[in-house]
């Protein structure tokens, strides 16, 4: 009930936007831009012949693989850079240069190295999501308050315990923030990668709909589906933020 009370203004605004869109298409008598009804119709058509689910599955699989690999590399690397000063001063400048390069700029190189296929897309997603997670993990370790590190020192605990009960949980909120950013970027990039180098996925679906007979109803349907799935992925990451072990960071 409470959720409904908070979301009704956005529902109203969304309804108004859809109405404006609908009226504009009807008034301008556009033959190519679809009405909302056409978009729903197109979506149903794709859902019925199963191709929609295949495209969603392909995109999610690529994001899962690329993002998963990025997590596996970024978090240990971030811890290492956070704890070892030499590692930080050596690696950080390199990452600071690589990080602002749009993942899209990597597309030609990705195709050169990995060909036109899944590997290219997974590589691009990896490149897109690995840097924010490295940076956030490092920041998470660097911003652990001295009083906690001193307390840990004071109790002479083993290295394992120091890592598992101090370093890891203390930096976990920042790591989760990094993962949220990383997954968001990964979802942006998969669509771009699929538009250029692949023959499946939501990005491909959009390009294909336009190239194969200006099916703009399917273009818009694809865009809306991308938006909704992106929202759902972010929702999953927000669930991580509500875990008990990180709630201290958001309490008060």
């Amino acid at each position: 009930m409470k959720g409904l009370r908070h979301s009704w203004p956005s529902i109203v605004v969304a309804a108004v936007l859809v109405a404006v869109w609908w009226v504009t298409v009807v008034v301008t008598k556009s033959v190519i831009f679809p009405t909302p009804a056409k978009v729903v119709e197109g979506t149903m058509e794709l859902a019925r012949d199963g191709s929609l689910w295949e495209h969603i599955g392909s995109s999610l699989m690529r994001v899962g693989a690329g993002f998963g690999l990025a997590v596996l590399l970024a978090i240990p690397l971030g811890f290492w850079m956070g704890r070892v000063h030499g590692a930080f001063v050596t690696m950080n400048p390199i990452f600071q240069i690589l990080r602002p390069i749009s993942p899209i700029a990597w597309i030609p190189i990705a195709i050169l190295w990995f060909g036109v296929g899944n590997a290219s897309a997974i590589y691009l997603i990896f490149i897109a999501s690995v840097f924010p997670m490295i940076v956030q993990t490092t920041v998470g370790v660097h911003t652990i308050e001295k009083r906690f590190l001193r307390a840990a020192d004071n109790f002479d605990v083993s290295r394992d315990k120091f890592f598992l009960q101090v370093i890891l949980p203390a930096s976990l909120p920042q790591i989760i923030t990094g993962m949220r950013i990383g997954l968001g970027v990964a979802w942006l990039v998969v669509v771009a990668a699929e538009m250029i180098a692949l023959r499946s996925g939501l990005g491909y679906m959009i390009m294909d709909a336009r190239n194969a007979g200006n099916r703009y109803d399917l273009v818009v349907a694809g865009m809306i589906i991308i938006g909704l799935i992106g929202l759902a992925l972010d929702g999953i990451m927000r669930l991580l933020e509500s875990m008990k072990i990180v709630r201290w960071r958001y309490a008060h």
Partner: protein
Amino acid sequence: MPTDNAPPKISLQGVRKSFEKDGRTLEVISDLSFDVRDSEFVAIVGPSGCGKTTLMNIICGFLQPDTGAVLVDGKPRTEPNKKGILITQQGSVFPWLTVRQNLLFGLPDDVPERERLAHEYADLVGLKGFENNYPHELSGGMLKRCEIARALVVKPEILYMDEPFSALDALMSLRMQNELLRILAKERHTVLLITHDVEEAVHLADRILVLSPRPARIQASFDVNLPHPRRVSSPEAQALRVAILKELGVSETG
């Protein structure tokens, strides 16, 4: 007991410490020497900014003195260890661990009955029933109790307390002082307390050292020969308080 030839529990010998600031050398501690006997409760009072916290960090082993040494049981100490646990004003209870996990933190896995010990100390400080709570669910006073329990459960020989109750309101601070005395009556520890609160020092300590403004030196030393429980409002305690304040340059009539 013939303990005359045993070394003092803590011994500072000619400790000096300076910091570089804006290209200038700032001397914080200047040639400081004093001893703390085993089981003694020594309070160090001094004006704010006189280097009390720096001094505490040196004594605990978190900072190294430029010259001089800190001996614990006659042996030089260079690193912090479990023999003496530091309790500070800000506190350092880990917010990501529950009360119980905090209490278990300093107990290695091979300590027999560590769970029971943690339970016993939670009970001792009055945190029974809150063991599965996270620190952000506790009040300031309870957090302090948790920190004290976490220190005591590892059976340290020394408690280092740096303004431990300053962040609490006056009433809670007094309550925690009484609590500390109650616990110390049960299990004896050597305590070194740093505070700016003269009344707190008079309430708790066996001996009070007054530090000078920076660079810190020992300016005066007072023995507190009053039996516990003390009444801080008693004439003897008040006279002592006035004498200490006078050393700090505060006159009550002024």
